[in-house]
């Protein structure tokens, strides 16, 4: 087991190097730092001196991969690639293009993101599993048919409409909670709406997906023997079938766990929650490439952690799976 985890961790290194190279190529060679400076300072009427100043303030004035002006090992380390890209491996994110410390921002903004993502995940799981089990319980009846139709309809609504609609209905029309904003004092007030909308937005797709998982289990032999023993259908469903169908559900959730840190892009910025999602969006909108680069790397690390956790959780919940 231990060797497996270590091997997986080692396997993650080339992937992260790949991610690093891709971001480097995208951010520094497709468009040079000169282009970036020009974009930030405005396209027209920009002097070469202003560009140089902008670059040197942000340490973008070094050669890309090979520095001929210094001696020794510094030829490789005193470059943009080493300082901006390789430094990410040590989680040194550096400072954003407007001078703030990215690492500090991330540590601070992580918590509001989690405050939304974790309740959405837990409440969502409970709700989706209950709903899908009910659909399976009423399978081949009108409840099931119309439930599925409703789920498909809910799936067909863009997440934007859930957010805008929910904000309008609950916040503006019923005046129950504030429309947007965040405050550490009365945090729950600001979190209720995004959490509800996050849960409701997932009902359609996830319930339908879980329903198919449960339906696959329902024809298995152990279900038949449980019924033959005289167990009530309720007990069969909520104990036997649920337990076995939880394997794919749980592992799917585990894969998504680390990414919870990243927060939800759209809903955070809509509700003005100062989490990592809105951080990313703000960075994209203000074209702050330093932050985008940091978030790309962070996202990849978390994704890979999720992959490893998934494999490990398989062995824990399903003893038939052996890792070599």
């Amino acid at each position, binding site marked *: 087991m231990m060797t497996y985890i270590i091997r997986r961790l080692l396997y993650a290194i080339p992937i992260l190097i790949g991610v690093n190279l891709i971001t480097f190529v995208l951010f520094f060679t497709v468009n040079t730092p000169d282009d970036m400076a020009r*974009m930030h300072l405005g396209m027209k009427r920009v002097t070469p001196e202003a560009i140089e100043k902008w670059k040197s303030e942000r340490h973008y004035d070094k050669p890309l991969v090979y520095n001929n002006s210094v001696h020794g090992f510094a030829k490789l380390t005193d470059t943009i690639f080493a300082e901006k890209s390789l430094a990410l491996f040590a989680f040194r994110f550096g400072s954003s293009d407007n001078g703030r410390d990215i690492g500090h921002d991330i540590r601070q903004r992580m918590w509001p993101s989690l405050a939304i993502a974790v309740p959405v995940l837990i409440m969502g799981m409970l709700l989706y599993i209950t709903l899908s089990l009910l659909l399976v319980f009423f399978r081949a009846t009108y409840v099931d048919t119309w439930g599925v139709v409703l789920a498909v309809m809910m*799936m*067909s609504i863009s997440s934007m409409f859930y957010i805008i609609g929910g904000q309008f209905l609950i916040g503006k029309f019923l005046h129950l909670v504030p429309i947007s904003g965040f405050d550490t004092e009365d945090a729950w007030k600001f979190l209720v709406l995004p959490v509800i909308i996050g849960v409701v937005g997932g009902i359609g797709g996830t319930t339908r997906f879980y329903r198919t998982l449960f339906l696959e289990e329902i024809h298995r032999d152990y279900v038949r023997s449980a019924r033959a023993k005289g167990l009530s259908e309720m007990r069969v469903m909520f104990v036997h079938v649920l337990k076995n169908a939880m394997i794919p559900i749980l592992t799917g959730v585990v894969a998504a766990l680390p990414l919870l840190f990243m927060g939800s892009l*759209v809903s955070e910025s809509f509700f003005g929650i100062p989490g990592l999602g809105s951080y990313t969006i703000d960075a994209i909108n203000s074209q702050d490439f330093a932050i985008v680069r940091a978030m*790309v790397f962070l996202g990849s690390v978390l994704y*890979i952690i999720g*992959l490893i956790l998934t494999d490990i959780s398989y062995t824990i919940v399903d003893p038939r799976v052996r890792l070599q």
Partner: protein
Amino acid sequence: MMPELLFLWTDLLLWLLVMLTLLFIRYAGKRRHLREPWQRVFRSGMAVGAAVVLGVFILIGLLDSIHFRSGDDATNPGEVLSLFDTMVTPLREQQEKSYSAPFATTLYAREMVMQEDGGTERIYPQLKYGGAHLTDLGEKRWDILLTTAIGVAQAIVLWLLVAGLLGLWRRSKPSPSSPRERVRVRGEFAAHWLSVLRRSSDNTNRFPWHVLAWMLLILFMLILVSANLSLKYHILGTDKVGEDVFYQALKSIRTGLVLGTLTTLVMLPAAILMGVMAGYFRGWVDDVIQYLYTTLNSIPGVLLIAASVLMLQVYMDNNAADFSSTIERADMRLLFLCIILGVTSWTGLCRMLRGEALKIRELDYVQASQAFGVSSFRIMMRHLVPNVMHIVLITVVLDFSGLVLAEAVLAYINIGVDPSTNSWGNMINSARLEMAREPIVWWSLSAAFVFMFALVLAANLFSDVVRDAFDPRLRGKG
């Protein structure tokens, strides 16, 4: 003089896709194993209903994909218009000054207007086009009712014609299964006019003509009523700069279709080739390809798209001279968005194909071909690729609705299609701010919602049936 045709990249690719689809239909029609799943699809009433709706969307999208310059000669190039634009010229040209509600005859906000006696007064100014034909505003309700009635009447006449002809055509086709019926049918044309509406007695094995007929009736009514009404009113209101929202929503169809289809089209060759190669060759080829897609997959999709689009913007700003018109620039961005969305979404398909290829390569007929010394390339082309096509098809159909929905999110983050391109995402994005207005402007958002919902729902329902028909695991389970 003939207007000068203008081929945009997305136009060409869209028409290429149409050609490929037609070729595939011809190809599949001759082969029983390909024909049967499709026949199963089209025996489902739901699929036929969804297909009719999709068909209307596709028709509008394709009409909107034939572009030309409206000008007469080189000195006066004119605007770039599409065939669809010329069909809805009144909608396009009837621009108001600012917001107006659906069916309104005045603007939505009061304005200062100079009176004849020199004083000013705050009133709701009359619209230039919406309801301008009315002499008495009190007649508006009757006028709307009358116009609707005319539309309904036209729809019914058209439908009687189409559905009737369908019925005649269907009945006059000799059906070998029931020779007795055929005898009875002859000479009773009148009785079969509209016979399509009757459910056939064995509705399990037949094309659901009645669904088609009813769907056509509903669609004819919607189209003709809205066509009649939109000549006189702005049936979905106007936006901030006074453009008709109905027109915007219709124009957005093309953007949605392009993103939903071209994205998969551009990623398919790479996904199929790499997936099949990884599964067939195994060894280091497999390692490299797996490494490639795990790496790409581990980058958060939105961020990769954002990074690429930001880079594209910088590139376009630096090379502004390469793009002669805004429409070409916008089109380039749309195409680029398709490509980059394809890069982020081919990995799932590639992984599935690899798994399937791993299984198929162990089958006897592949082993036999290898023993005969058939080249690897030929084996992959003749044996592997055709046998994984059902997975490709299912993925293409399933991905479509997700891509249409993704466009709205991307537009919100400002990394979607060009702001000058009509798209539902852009409509929602601008309507977002309008919701905060007092009184609120709700029609842009609602229009985008209805159109998007209709397209995505139809696509979802259709893809469900397609998946059930093509997925071998589900075959035979009813």
